[in-house]
């Protein structure tokens, strides 16, 4: 909606261009309220199908048995139990701590090395085989390994998340630097910048907004591994709660926890995005 000026009628809107017509324009962002409406209706549709498949007074009348898919009401009723006796808050805190530590460590190590590798390709060539290997090993295989290496306590969970995410962090940081146009490097060099100055004053700061965006997405990946990280010897944590719910045959608890994980991830992403806009005022596209 921001830019006027390509086709006549964008913004102004002659009578012929009704809003229904404008919905079908290529690459045109609909107005804010239309976007919200569309988003809400997709969730609404899902809830409607869910509600329809699980409606009926007694279990035999339902399209899907409550043991497989509990109704909306039953799922909502699990909330007090989760917050109360099952200690949801403590579990959220435990899981988030593990993710922040493991993924944070991956960022602290992966981002600087990745950016250096993007600027200095021999380092990239040196590390690339390990990164490809690390990105493609079955994640679950890391469970027994990390158990053998780091024991069964918190260290294992943090290190598992670290090893699982650091290859992705590294390659995203490297490719963000690679993507910076060579013209910037040449300009800096003809202004007398040394290699280190080009990296520190030009390449790294120009790549940083993209690095940040990538890390926002990778955070989702790290959060997704929580189940695996908490498979063994966890006394708290969202993964642990889900496992226990399965043992107790409480699918409504699992559904509720998934909803909460989704909301939590969304909240964190919004916070990061807010930080990003403050950190990079020169990128209005973020």
């Amino acid at each position, binding site marked *: 909606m921001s830019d006027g000026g390509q086709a006549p009628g964008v913004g102004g809107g002659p009578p012929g261009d009704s809003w229904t017509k404008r919905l079908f324009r290529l690459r045109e962002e609909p107005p804010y309220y239309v976007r919200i409406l569309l988003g809400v209706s997709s969730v609404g549709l899902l809830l409607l199908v869910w509600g329809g498949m699980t409606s009926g007074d007694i279990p035999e009348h339902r399209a899907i048995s409550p043991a497989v898919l509990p109704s909306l009401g039953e799922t909502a009723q699990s909330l007090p139990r989760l917050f109360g006796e099952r200690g949801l808050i403590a579990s959220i805190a435990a899981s988030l701590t593990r993710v922040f530590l493991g993924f944070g460590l991956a960022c602290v190590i992966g981002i600087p090395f990745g950016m250096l590798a993007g600027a200095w390709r021999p380092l990239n060539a040196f590390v690339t085989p390990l990164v490809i290997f690390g990105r493609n090993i079955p994640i679950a295989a890391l469970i027994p390994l990390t158990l053998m290496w780091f024991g069964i306590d918190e260290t294992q969970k943090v290190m598992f998340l670290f090893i699982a995410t650091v290859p992705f962090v590294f390659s995203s940081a490297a490719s963000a630097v690679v993507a910076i146009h060579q013209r910037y490097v*040449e300009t800096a*060099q003809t202004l007398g910048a040394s290699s280190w100055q080009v990296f520190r004053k030009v390449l790294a700061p120009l790549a940083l907004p993209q690095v940040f965006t990538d890390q926002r997405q990778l955070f989702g990946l790290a959060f997704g591994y929580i189940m695996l990280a908490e498979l063994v010897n966890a006394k708290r944590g969202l993964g642990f709660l889900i496992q226990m719910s399965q043992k107790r045959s409480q699918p409504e608890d699992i559904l509720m926890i998934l909803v909460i994980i989704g909301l939590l991830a969304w909240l964190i992403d919004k916070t990061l995005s807010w930080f990003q806009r403050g950190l*990079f005022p020169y990128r209005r596209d973020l």
Partner: protein
Amino acid sequence: MSEDAPVPFKDADALIKEIDAAAKADPPPAAPDRDAAPPAPEVTVVAAGGEAPAPAAAPSGRPAIVEFKHVTKTYGDGPKAFTAIKDVHFRIEDIPGKGEFICVLGPSGCGKSTVLRLIAGLGPQHPPTTGEVLVDGRPVVGPGADRGMVFQDYTSFDHMTVEDNVAFGLACRGVGKAERIGQAHGWIDKVGLSVKNDARKYPHQLSGGMRQRVAIARTLILSPRIILMDEPFGALDPSTRMQMQDNLVALWRDLEATVFFVTHSIEEAVYLGDRVHILSSSPGTLLREITVPPPDRPAHAMQRDPRFLEYVFDIRDTIETLEASRRAGDD
């Protein structure tokens, strides 16, 4: 090719034959099409120097500020080899207290930028395949602040404010914050921007013309002896372009630097230049050097003068004739 001895302008025709013969000897199965042009009838070609006797005819012992000695740049080898420029040979004297404004004219893809980037020492054009590029008598080894460069696009560091952009080179030299920002403000003013309104802006808040002004200020603040400009006004609208030309002329008068200005606008070349170098289409060779009158009025006035237009038409005809005779010699 082993003529590093001073035989610059002896006999253009013979020279061409030598070089073509050498080029033919090098790649085993002679390169296809244009590259394998028969040597003979390019008589008009490489009149460099012969046409316009270099201003400082007697070099007086001082090294030329820029000298190309039979420079050829070829990428790849065998049948896939591509020659960007071929046997470019010229010499620019360092006129004391003035410097020269050289415009490099030629069709797209003729290797104009290659010439510039060879002087700047930027890869992959640098180093040349054969021949030598000398600046101040010494071979170019890499980029440096003595040869400032202004490009057409991607010209500003998006993460820095205007004043930090302009002060970038000084910061790299270790000049203190207050000192370099002070100097930057001086240059922001000189290139026609407002210190009060623009100094703290980010590049994305500026128009294309303003961003080019920032790029020019950022280069000139380092007072380079050679300024390389690669179609810096190519993306600007005509009236902005003329304003920028006027501004550049005014700035250059105080600078005493040698400017290489690549363009494909004949008007721009004739207006700005003391001399115009005409390059042929690929592979680029230096077809001719023409001396033109320096700008003595604002661009919009001078570019309407019949005498000015005569120069423009003359050069256009020259280019067409030279290209035609080259093509005739090609098949």
